C-alpha cells in the first residue's frame, strides 16, 4: 500500500513541476499564438532571482516568491512591448526572435552572475518530510504540488469567471471581430504575455531548491513544457493539466520499473505515436481553426 502511495506521490510531484513550467507556455500560446522559445529562460531567470534575493539580501524563498512573479512578469511585459507585438501573425519570425532572446538572456546571465552552478536553500519550515498513508514524501515537494494546483485554479478562474477572461476567450476565437467590438486586444495580449512569463519565473524559483541553478537550465524545461502542451492540445488549459499528470505519472512509474533513461525514451515514443494519430492533442477544443 505504502509503495502505491509513494509511487503516486512521486508521479504527482513530477507532474506538478511539469504543470508549473508548461502553464505559462500554454497560456501564451493559447491566447496569442506565439511559440515562446525563451520560455525556459524565464524559468531560469526566476531561479536566478531566488538565488540572488537569498544570497545577497538574505530573503527566504517563500518571502521572495511574489516579488519574483512581479519581476519576471514585468520583464515579459517589456519584451512583449519591445519585440513580440511587432511579430504577431508571423509565427516563424516569433520563433526566431524568442530563440534569439533566449540565447542572449543565457549569455547575459553567464556574464553577470557567472557560469558556476548555484543552489537555493529550501525554506526551513518545509525541509522535513511528511507521512501520508505510510509513505514518506518531502514536505517541499508537496508544497510545490499545492502551489501548482493553486496557480492552475487561479488561471482557470480568471479565464472562466472574470470579464478579462471573457475578453481573452473572445480574442482567442477571433481577434479581428473581438477588436471591432471594442476589446483592447493589444493590452490583453501584453497582459497575457506578462502573466505567462511571471508564472514561468515562479516555476523557476519553486524548483530551484530541488535542482541546480545554471544559465543553461532553461533548455531542458522548455522541451518538457512543449511536450506537455503538444500532448494536451494547444488551446486547452484542462489539457495541460491532464497531460502533465499523465506524463508525470507515466515517467515516474516507468523510471521505477526500469530506469530514467528508458523512461524518457518510452515517454517520447508514446508522444510521437499519439501525435501521429491525434495531431490536435488529447484535449483540443472544437472551435477555431
Amino acid at each position, binding site marked *: 500500500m505504502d509503495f502505491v502511495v509513494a509511487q503516486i506521490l512521486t508521479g504527482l510531484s*513530477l507532474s506538478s513541476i511539469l504543470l508549473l513550467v508548461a502553464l505559462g507556455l500554454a497560456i501564451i500560446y493559447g491566447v496569442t499564438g506565439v511559440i515562446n522559445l525563451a520560455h525556459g529562460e524565464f524559468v531560469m531567470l526566476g531561479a536566478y532571482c531566488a538565488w540572488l534575493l537569498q544570497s545577497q539580501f538574505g530573503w527566504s524563498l517563500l518571502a521572495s516568491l511574489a516579488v519574483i512573479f512581479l519581476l519576471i512578469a514585468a520583464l515579459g511585459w517589456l519584451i512583449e512591448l519591445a519585440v513580440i507585438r511587432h511579430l504577431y501573425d508571423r509565427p516563424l519570425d516569433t520563433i526566431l526572435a524568442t530563440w534569439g532572446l533566449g540565447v542572449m538572456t543565457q549569455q547575459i546571465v553567464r556574464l553577470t552572475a557567472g557560469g558556476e552552478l548555484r543552489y537555493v536553500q529550501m525554506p526551513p519550515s518545509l525541509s522535513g518530510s511528511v507521512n501520508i498513508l505510510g509513505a514518506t514524501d518531502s514536505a517541499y515537494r508537496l508544497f510545490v504540488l499545492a502551489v501548482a494546483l493553486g496557480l492552475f485554479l487561479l488561471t482557470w478562474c480568471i479565464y472562466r469567471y472574470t470579464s478579462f477572461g471573457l475578453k481573452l476567450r473572445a480574442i482567442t476565437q477571433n481577434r479581428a471581430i473581438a477588436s471591432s467590438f471594442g476589446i483592447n486586444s493589444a493590452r490583453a495580449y501584453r497582459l497575457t504575455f506578462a502573466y505567462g512569463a511571471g508564472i514561468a519565473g515562479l516555476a523557476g524559483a519553486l524548483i530551484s531548491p530541488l535542482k541546480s541553478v545554471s544559465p543553461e*537550465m532553461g533548455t531542458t524545461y522548455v522541451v518538457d513544457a512543449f511536450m506537455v502542451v503538444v500532448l494536451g492540445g494547444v488551446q486547452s488549459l484542462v489539457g495541460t493539466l491532464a497531460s502533465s499528470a499523465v506524463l508525470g505519472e507515466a515517467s515516474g512509474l516507468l523510471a521505477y520499473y526500469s*530506469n530514467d533513461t528508458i523512461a524518457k525514451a518510452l515517454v517520447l515514443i508514446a508522444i510521437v505515436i499519439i501525435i501521429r494519430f491525434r495531431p490536435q492533442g488529447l484535449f483540443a477544443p472544437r472551435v477555431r481553426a
Partner: protein
Amino acid sequence: MNRNRRNFLKAGAAAGAFSLVGFPHIWSKNASLAFAQDGEIKVGVLFSLTGTTAIIEESLNKATLMAIEEINADGGINDLKITAVVEDPASDPATFAEKARKLVLSDRCVSVFGSYTSASRKAVLPVFEKQENLFWYPTLYEGRECSKNVIYTGAVPNQQQDDFIPWLVEKFGKRWYLIGSNYIYPKEENNYCKKLLEGLGAEVIAEEYVPLGHSEFSSVINKFRSEKPNVIFSTVVGDSVVALHRQYRAAGLDPATMPMASLTTSENEVAAMGGDAAAGHFTSAPYFMVFDSPENQRFVDAYRSRWGGDKVTHFVSESAYFQIHLFRQAVAKLTAGDIGPLAIREAVKGEEYKAPQGLVKVEPENLHCWLRPKIGQCKADGQFEILTQSADWLEPNPYSAYPNQKCTAEGLKEV
C-alpha cells in the same frame, strides 16, 4: 584517374614520412628547429575557458599557470624560461583536436597540458600519437587506455576504490546500490566496483544509469527508500550530482545509515550544491584541500593569494599543479639540445615529486602516477574531514577491471 590518385597518395605519404621522421631526427640540433631556443621552452595549455565545462577547467588552467609562474620565478629550468601558449578549446572535443594540432605543429610546443573530460582526451589523442608529442592529463578517469604519448597524473579506478570499497563494506554493509550518469566513465568505474564487491561477498542490488544532465531523481530516491541499500555508490556527474544530493536531503534520507559514496564529488561540486546537502557523504581521492602537509599549505596559500581568497583547490587542480613540476624535473635532466617530447617522456619515467597530496611517482610502464588515496567525509562547511589514508602509495593499474590485459611500456599486452 585512379592511378594518378594512387601515385599522388604515395608521394604524399612519402613526403609525410620524410618530414615527420626524417627531419627532426637529422636536424633537431639545428637551432631553428630545436624545441628549446632563445632561452625559452614552449608548452601548450589546453583547458576550456568557455562552454559547459569551463567552470572546472578554469581552475585547472589557473593551477597550471601558477606552477609555470613559480618555476619561472625560480629561474626556469636550467636557465630556460617556460612560455605557456594558452588556447581555449571551448568545451568542444572537435575544437580540442584542432587547438592541439595548432599547439603541436605551428607553435611547436614540447608538451601540452590539458583537458578534463574523457571525450576531449580521446579527441586529442590521435594528434599526439601521430606527431610523437606528449600530452599531460590531470583528471581522474576510467582507465582502460594505454598511450605512449600521454602522462596521466590523475587517479584510475583501482587507486580510488581499492581502499574505499572494503572500508565502506565493513563500516556500512553489503547491500550496494550503483547509480551513475549514462556514459563510459561510470560504467567502467562500476565494472571495477562490482568486481571488488564480488570478492568481498557484497551484493549489488541495483545498477542504474540516468541521462547526462538529468535533474529529477524522485523515482531513484523512491527506490532507495524501498530497497534500503547500505551504501549508494554514485558516479553521477555534472549538475545532476547537485540535483541528486539536494533531492536526497529534501526526501529526509539519512547519510548515517545510507551514505552516498563518490569518486568525483570534490570541494568544487560541494560548493555548487551547498555544504548542507553534501554533509555526511563520502569521497575517495588522492587529495583534499584540508590535507595537512607543508606542501599543501604552500599550494593553497599560493593559489588563494594568486587567484582570490575564496577559491577552492581540489584533486584535479592539484594534479594539474604537480604535473608541471614533474615536467620541470624531467626537462632539467636533459641538455638543451636534446629537449623533445620523447626525451621528456623517457626522462619522466620513475620521476618522484613531493606534491601537496604527498610523494607521487610516474610509473615507467604505463605512464600513470603512483598516488596515495584518502577517504574524506564531507562536512556542512563544504570541506572534507580526512578519515583514513592508504598505508602506502598505490600502483596505477588502468586495466584493473580486465585482469587479462596489461598496459606496458611497449603498449597493451594480453596476459
